[in-house]
């Protein structure tokens, strides 16, 4: 004999209550993730701004000091730092040239290695001395 209650559809009220229990589970899952994973809150914040951007907060306005120097001192420091970056590139040019010279010397033959020929790009040491790259620092 079949059990009548097992075939009975849940009433609307029962379904509503069940739905509320499911909402509690969903809410708890979110709370659990917030507690467990700091990044989750960032991701959730992004989602609340309509973005699934992962790993970092959605771009926000930055304070002026972050994009422009707040003082003449900071501005000059930035210029010095940038000049160091430029020097870094010029030193890299010189090192590549030295590596190429070394590689050419190491060859037993006299045929030039095309990749080692920097002549079509200008001489590296000449670039390193080019004044126009440095003048901006002094402005």
């Amino acid at each position: 004999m079949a059990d009548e209650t097992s075939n009975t559809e849940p009433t609307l009220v029962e379904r509503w209550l069940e739905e509320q229990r499911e909402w509690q589970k969903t809410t708890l899952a979110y709370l659990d993730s917030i507690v467990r994973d700091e990044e989750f809150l960032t991701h959730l914040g992004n989602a609340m701004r309509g973005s699934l951007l992962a790993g970092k907060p959605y771009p926000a306005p930055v304070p002026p000091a972050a994009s422009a120097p707040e003082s003449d001192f900071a501005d000059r420091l930035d210029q010095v730092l940038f000049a160091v970056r430029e020097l870094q590139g010029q030193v890299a040019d010189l090192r590549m040239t030295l590596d190429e010279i070394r590689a050419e010397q190491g060859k037993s033959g006299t045929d030039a290695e095309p990749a080692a020929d920097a002549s079509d790009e200008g001489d590296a040491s000449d670039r390193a001395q080019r004044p126009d790259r440095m003048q901006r620092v002094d402005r």
Partner: protein
Amino acid sequence: MTLPVDDRELESLIELSRRSRARLERLHEVLTSPGHYGAGATQAQVVYAENKLRLLRLLDDDGQPQNGPPVLFIPAPVSRYFILDLMPGRSFAGYVAAAGFDVYIADFGVPTREDRFCDLAYYVDGLIRRSVRAIRRTSGAAEVSIVGYCLGGMLALLYSALNPGTVSRLALLTTMVDGDVEGGIAWIAHRMGLAGESYEQPRLVSAIEIKSWFEMLAPGSNSLIGRVSDLWDRLDDPPERLRDVRTMASWVDDVVPAPGRLLAEMHRQFGPGRNGLMKGEAAVGSRKVDIGNVTMPVLSVSAARDTISPPEGVDAIGSIVPQAEIVRLRGGHVGIVAGRAAAGLWPRVVDFLGSGNGSGTDNGNGSGDGNGTGNGNGSGTGNDSGTGNAAPERGDV
């Protein structure tokens, strides 16, 4: 006491509640699942580094570089590089590498405040020139093919004009050369005040400001309400599809700040009303650029639905580089490199890079069709989840 709602209303309320809950559960699933976000998909090694630049050389599954001719990918320095190497199975650079080319990608990194002084010469005659030099040294090849995307294409074109002997083939993707064509990001930036950007006292132009220019291309579509509403609707999609959307969103929404000096110089030379490239008046530092030096084979690809680089402004290269092969694909700015329309681009570029040197590939003939995707928030990805970097098919999204 009677219930305020009848059965039918309660039924619909329960259904509404269930659907909303299902969407939030799906969102939770997506937000908590690991994925490939914010970095290139393909294994790579850094072969040269300078300031924020990393020159990446792609490696195969065994950790070895390919033996084919070298190819350098140059992305736009105002966005993250990994759009060219988005995710396993959807990597343009990975696809080219899988065809046998020795692929390098310039990752310009994220500029900080002192980098606001970086100008055109710093990028073209500095970072790119030394990157090419490093590639020639690493690969032993005398010449390097270059694939430039968007603003990266402009840098590649200028570099090629100054150093034609080092470039074997040049592919320019959605690279706008005619600054007088209305519309597009350069025009919007001009309208939004880029004309006032100072070369002498540059700012680091914030990511949010640059993002606002892109959003102005489709006013209203990226409003907070619009974005949230769009995401809410998308939460009905399968989780794997949402993970793809998330990968793309992690590129679209991760705009980087830009050196004000570079933008000021670009605007001063190539912007609306100046149009120095078309007029033959371009210069990099103290060196005048003669576009006539660009005698190597050139492929220029525009996207019919590109709102960032209007196709008319891209195709105009035909009047200054007569030998350029000009192709217009259906699709959007992002879609042709990483979305559905990539099916039309990737094989065509591989064919172009491979022609003339016997390397490369049997990857089809690039039919130039495909339905592109938009440029906006969280758009434009497919669910091609394979790992072999096969060009995505039109129907796979």
